[in-house]
């Protein structure tokens, strides 16, 4: 059984939501990055601090799908991904400055979503 550490992720200066505490578990052990172009530094830092595995969610889906995600790191422009992961119960971190919008806005809460995040907003909890 792996010993994962907890991290705190806060909203950036122009961001919204959070702070979130990300605690990977044996079941939710992937920091999934859905930004294209590999693992974003924010996802890498969360993985490094927690001891969880950074996973390029655009190349493949982790075994267990949403249920295996400790959190999702996205670069959503405000409409789609911003809602999909919160709707499926995955704490969601957007590197862009977004606020709840789109048809799935009702699923986006301060408890499951934080935006405007850079590496500076990720710290040990």
């Amino acid at each position: 059984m792996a010993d994962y550490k907890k991290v705190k992720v806060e909203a950036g200066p122009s961001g919204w939501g959070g702070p979130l505490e990300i605690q990977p578990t044996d079941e939710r052990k992937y920091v999934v990055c859905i930004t294209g172009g590999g693992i974003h530094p924010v996802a890498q830092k969360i993985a490094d601090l927690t001891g969880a595995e950074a996973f390029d969610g655009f190349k493949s889906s982790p075994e267990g799908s949403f249920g295996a995600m400790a959190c999702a790191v996205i670069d959503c422009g405000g409409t789609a991904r911003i809602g999909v992961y919160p709707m499926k119960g995955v704490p969601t971190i957007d590197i862009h400055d977004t606020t709840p919008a789109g048809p799935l806005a009702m699923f986006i809460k301060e408890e499951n979503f934080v935006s405007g995040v850079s590496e500076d907003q990720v710290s040990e909890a």
Partner: protein
Amino acid sequence: MNIYQSEIVYIGEQAELFLNEGIIVFFGDNAPEELQEFAVLHKLNEILGEIVVGSTIELSGAILKVTAVGHVANENFQNLGHLVLKLDFATEPALPGDVSCSFDVKPEVNIGDSLKISS
């Protein structure tokens, strides 16, 4: 100039949630399964340029004119084949990922339809 040419290969079960609000959420056909459910997928081809205000999008036989482009829209398109098309005539993008359009006839999107973007 031709920027992009492709065809629609899949329409997710939940894509309607967005379509009903005049939003077409495109992803390339390499998108992760989790997102396919909400998206309209196009066969990912080479992207030859940037979408700008005034670009023309031919979708399912309808002609759309781009009226606004959010500042992360082209980056999303290049990286993920991801395009959020809003049929809302907006001249200011409401959200950073938006590509807003004007239209005469609203496109009815079906599998096999063509998607063509030109500047």
